[in-house]
């Protein structure tokens, strides 16, 4: 059953991702992108990363894509859908490159046995916490333990980055008055 | 120059700035009205109280003896601003209706086009015989334009009988019978 779910969700993710890239209408693209994000969240659920799945839906599908849609609709960039692509050279080159990349990926990860297929480890319900090598658990608590022990510095830096981004956005989007 | 008085507006207190006391008082008000009885009327079953001087649909009335009061003088037809009234005057056949012979005249046709009527009440005001009244009927409906033209039967049906304090025709009849005609 979970195998079927994996194939279904992976297929939807890839197809909607591809549709997003090639769809001439930006709104269509954004909707495909939302579907792609949600199905990726479903893949996270299959990987038992429930917290990240929810975060993915909440942040990406719920906030980021709303922003995208908002901007797409506000700027009304769908007007010129006719000249969607760059020149023919770029088109050919990018399609060739894409095909090569796909062939490479498929041949590495689908054909060969370069990575061992490890069995799923038993999931521990309560994280032991501090130190290195935090074991994989499904509970959100282990995120808390890790964030405030091993990853304290990145956590602080991320917070600072968010503050900087917020100030940056305010500065960039502010209309400059004449006398300033 | 009119004297103007500028009122100082009091600065809002902290509680007022949060809007919460106002919201609570508003909620109290609405809850109070919710507890009260509704003021609406269940219309088709319950009818509103129509005051006596209400100007509803114009109707023709009969006198207490069941006689037509209208003598087709056509004053209402002339005075009607939207020209909604159409009267075909007629005479009363003295042989056929001996008890009404003294009235002499009655309308043959009396149509009021309710699509045109503006309920101004001028017909009622001008009528010398007090035969036309704007009464308490206020809802009219129909499926076609023809239906909205009230003919004589309809008008009498709507109007019914009103008390008559003058008894004009009775007096005239009495006078005729006693031979005191002028």
């Amino acid at each position, binding site marked *: 059953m979970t195998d079927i779910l994996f194939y279904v969700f992976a297929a939807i993710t890839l197809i909607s991702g591809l549709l997003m890239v090639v769809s001439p209408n930006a709104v269509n693209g954004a909707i495909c992108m939302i579907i792609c994000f949600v199905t990726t969240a479903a893949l996270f659920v299959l990987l038992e990363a429930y*917290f990240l799945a929810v975060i993915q*839906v909440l942040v990406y599908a719920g*906030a980021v894509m*709303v922003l995208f849609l*908002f901007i797409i609709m506000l700027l009304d960039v769908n007007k010129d859908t006719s000249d969607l692509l760059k020149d023919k050279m770029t088109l050919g080159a990018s399609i060739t490159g894409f095909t090569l990349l796909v062939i490479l990926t498929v041949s590495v990860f689908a054909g060969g046995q370069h990575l061992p297929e490890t069995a799923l480890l038993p999931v521990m319900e309560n994280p032991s916490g501090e130190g290195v090598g935090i074991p994989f658990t499904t509970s959100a608590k282990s995120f808390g333990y890790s964030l405030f022990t091993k990853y304290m510095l990145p956590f602080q830096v991320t917070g600072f980055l968010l503050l900087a981004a917020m100030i940056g956005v305010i500065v960039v989007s502010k209309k400059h008055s004449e006398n300033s | 120059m009119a004297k103007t008085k500028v009122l100082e507006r009091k600065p809002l207190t902290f509680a007022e700035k949060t809007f919460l006391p106002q919201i609570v008082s508003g909620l109290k008000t609405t809850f109070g*009205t919710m507890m009260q009885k*509704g*003021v609406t009327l269940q219309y088709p079953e319950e009818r509103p109280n129509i005051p006596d001087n209400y100007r509803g649909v114009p109707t023709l009335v009969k006198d207490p003896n069941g006689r037509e009061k209208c003598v087709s003088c056509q004053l209402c037809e002339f005075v009607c601003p939207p020209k909604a009234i159409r009267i075909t005057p007629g005479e009363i056949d003295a042989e056929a209706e001996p008890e009404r012979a003294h009235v002499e005249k009655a309308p043959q046709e009396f149509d009021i086009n309710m699509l045109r009527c503006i309920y101004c009440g001028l017909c009622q005001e001008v009528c010398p015989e007090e035969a036309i009244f704007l009464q308490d009927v206020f809802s009219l409906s129909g499926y076609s334009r023809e239906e909205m033209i009230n003919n004589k039967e309809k008008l009498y049906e709507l109007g019914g009988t009103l008390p008559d304090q003058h008894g004009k025709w009775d007096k005239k009849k009495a006078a005729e019978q006693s031979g005191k005609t002028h």
Partner: protein
Amino acid sequence: MELLDAFLPYLLPIVYAVAMISVFMGLCSYSVLAERKVSSWIQGRVGPNRTRLPLLGHIPILGNLLTGLGIFQPAADGLKFLFKEEIVPGHVNKFYYMLAPVVTLAPALTTMVVLPFGRYVDADGITQPLVLANVDLGMLIILGISSLGVYGIVLAGWASNSKYPFLGGIRASAQMISYELAMGLALLPVFMWAAFPGSDYGMSLFGAVQSQQTLWLFIWQPLSALIFLVALFAETNRLPFDMAESETDLVGGFHTEYGCFKFGLFFVAEYAHVIMGSALFVLLFLGGWNFLPGLADPWGNGLIGTLLSVGWFIAKVFAMIFFFIWMRWTLPRFRYDQVMSLGWKILLPLAVGNLVFNTIIIALYDTFTR
């Protein structure tokens, strides 16, 4: 037979889910009726009192009573929506125009999966929630999925391809993003108190209810409750915050171009959101199925106790729905800039301050009680 055995584990949840959706949709249609009735009472009217079913409505006294209460009105409303002529304006983007109502309704129905509505005591004597999926991240899932609900409104506004719906959609998207922040931040102190060290519950709603056995969080965290309530009103697009469909300045907002059943879906979705919001508020701040603040659960352990807990929870939800409706018919609509400044300049700083304050309190508590 083997096939049946293989699919039985999947069949049972589906049956439960369908049952819950049926009950939920019934509640939705009757909250529409409640809205109409309460609004009419507040305005000194009588409200819907004419719809009469042929057989049931003609029982001597009961029939008249039910008809007067408008019990059969939702059926009439639903049938009206179903059998009206389906009109699709010529200028719309057909696909998204059709999709939008579905996208609006689906998240509200999906969040129901993690919503506990009662409790039972299992064979081992452990209290368990009555819920479709008892997951650790209940609250986060609800926040995440309900954040998808905005797409319906945005898509409806955009696909209608006309001015007023578009403005409604844009307003709704900005408003919902703004209030989601305050909502999430207001919830954090609640779960910081509910998931005390040593408890098994993370962001689960069941844990939040269990932590309110003696003291409701509404009393313990009034500021959080207030911020959450205001944000809830904004998220459900209800008056005083229904900027998406402010009929005085935007005709009908995002559903101006919608009619018949598609409009009906929007309509049901609004009430689905209201019911979800009420249930959430009851679970988080009004003690869920716990009896009264200060009183321990009087419900027994058996089946009757379970039913009583469910009934008490639903009664609280009804009270909350009534509050939603009451609020709607009391307050006038905010102006759009007022909505935005309330969200960003007042609620968000308040929520952050509340969070910091509670963090300090918890830290002090931990320091001095260990």
